[in-house]
């Protein structure tokens, strides 16, 4: 019994607590499918997927940084910045590369200040968030503008009745899977994070792993995933909006945490993060269908987060 409990709560597991959120998600899904008749419809499935997709994308990027014991609070600002760039009234051939150049630059600054200049990740990315939000508001004080037709098509199009959103999901998951589980980069992330979590922040370094370079790349990757989410959102709202990004900062951390990734680093999984983001999306989708007010939704989101985190057990006290 104790072993089963330890397995369910993800004790001593590299992947963390992801089974309980999965069960909670399935139970919630089943309950919604039985109790409300609008839930189990193709239209709602499409909505749910489209709602969850940007969060899944941001959360995957956020997870890479969290696995290294860091935190990226600038992802929300990157999303807003991306939509503002796309709505600049320029051809997509210029704005889409510009979005990624900006994301790489932001990730590079975040990563460099954290790894080379010894700045705490929370404070470095918080400062970056302020700067990027300032720039975004300079470019686009209120929502408006129009994104290129290509971007709209990329998000709302469909082939053989399968919406492009599905391909976005497959592509992003494949890319993230390759990065985390099919490359040296991913292996190094877990090695560095494991060392940081157990208090030996240079453990991976002593094994010859380029820890600073890997961390820098993780921050760049995180910003790029946020930019990708920004492109997706811009395609959905067909305009630039400075206020669309900021909620994703904390939501992405929430999704990552629900998915069993520990904020001290080293423990977490891709499927856990996807489950976490889906559970969050399911929560708001289901509560919308059940006519639960947005305010109660906020409170319930917090309570779920608190419950999940109280189940996780770790050795370190604090952050």
């Amino acid at each position, binding site marked *: 019994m104790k072993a089963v409990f330890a397995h369910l709560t993800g004790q001593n597991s590299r992947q963390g607590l992801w089974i309980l959120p999965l069960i909670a998600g399935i139970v919630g899904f089943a309950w919604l499918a039985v109790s409300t008749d609008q839930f189990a419809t193709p239209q709602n499935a499409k909505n749910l997927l489209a709602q969850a997709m940007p969060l899944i994308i941001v959360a995957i990027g956020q997870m890479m940084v969290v696995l290294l014991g860091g935190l990226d609070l600038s992802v929300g600002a990157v999303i807003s910045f991306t939509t503002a760039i796309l709505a600049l009234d320029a051809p997509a051939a210029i704005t889409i590369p510009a979005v990624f150049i900006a994301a790489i630059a932001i990730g590079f600054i975040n990563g460099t200040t954290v790894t080379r200049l010894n700045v705490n990740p929370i404070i470095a990315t918080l400062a970056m968030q302020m700067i990027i939000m300032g720039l975004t508001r300079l470019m686009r004080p209120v929502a408006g503008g129009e994104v290129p037709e290509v971007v709209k098509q990329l998000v709302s199009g469909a082939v053989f009745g399968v919406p492009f959103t599905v391909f976005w999901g497959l592509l992003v998951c494949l890319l993230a899977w390759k990065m985390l589980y099919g490359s040296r980069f991913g292996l190094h992330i877990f090695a560095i994070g494991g060392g940081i979590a157990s208090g030996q922040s240079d453990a991976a370094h002593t094994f010859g792993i380029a820890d600073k370079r890997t961390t820098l790349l993780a921050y760049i990757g995180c910003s790029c995933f946020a930019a990708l989410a920004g492109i997706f959102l811009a395609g959905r709202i067909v305009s630039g909006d400075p206020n669309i990004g900021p909620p994703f900062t904390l939501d992405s951390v929430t999704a990552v945490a629900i998915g069993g990734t520990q904020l001290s680093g080293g423990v977490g999984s891709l499927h856990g993060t996807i489950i976490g983001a889906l559970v969050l999306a399911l929560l708001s989708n289901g509560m919308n269908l059940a006519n639960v007010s947005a305010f109660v939704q906020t409170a319930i*989101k917090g309570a779920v987060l608190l419950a999940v985190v109280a189940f996780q057990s770790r050795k370190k006290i604090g952050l």
Partner: protein
Amino acid sequence: MTSALSSPLAQRLLRIPPAYYVFGALLLTLWLTRPQLFNPNVMGIFIRQVAPLGILVLGQLLVMRVRSIDLSGAGVILLVNYIISSGLFPNGTLAFYLFMSIGIGLSVGLVNGVLVGLRRSSAVIVTLATNIILIGVVQLLASGKPPGDVPGFLRDIYNSKVLNVPSAVIIWVVLTGVLSIFLSRTVYGRYVESVGENPTAAHFSGVPVARTVVTAHLLAGVMAGLAGLVQTSSIAVGSIRFGLDLPLNAVAATILGGVIFGRGDGGVWGPFFGVMSFAMLFIVMTTFGIQEPGKLIAQGSIILIAAIFYGLRS
């Protein structure tokens, strides 16, 4: 660069928290460009506005010294504000509101402290979650509408002055002084220092690590409650949206003041000047007519540059 940084003088200068440099530079800018603003009345009004942030920072620096963090301040402030301004207790006295604010702070701090200290959950997530819950509860109670008026006598106290200094500022300075003495003269202060320095070593030296962390969160909750009371007194009509960015600003001010997770080199007065430099930044920005986006960029750049300079020495 490296050799210049390792000289004794540079080392000594780098050891001074960036808050003092930022505060000095901004004060100088103001003195050179707008000397007419250099009178206690104008400065008092601006500094009075950051008093709630300053009180919140006192709690933040305490939890950050024991390697934790408290992001639930916004929720506590919002709840205090809602209860006072919604007219639930129309005959409330100052003592009643004071006890209520401290009580709310203590209960939230207890939840945070137990989960972070005893259950060993991640402090970022726990305090974020309590914050979300509190905000949701307040918005639900208010059903999206702003609550009613703030009792007049709170506003009168806020507007009063003692020896030409606004009373909100006096409350802030007194609390800072009390915390400073508390941390430097009591056993608990020693516990905080040793837990921050090395929790494992502290544990094996017989320091009650978990209890120290729980107490820090309790005190942080109390400070957030008091910040809520001062913040509420500063406005005439209640609101359900204000103060949401206060916790992150409190973290920024604390780090600017030389207190980083586990290390408290800046003491209590470093973060105090961190908050003061935010006030000065606000004055300078306003007098130069810089709009909201520019303010954000300037604030972010100053925090980043200060943190980089502080990070260079270690």
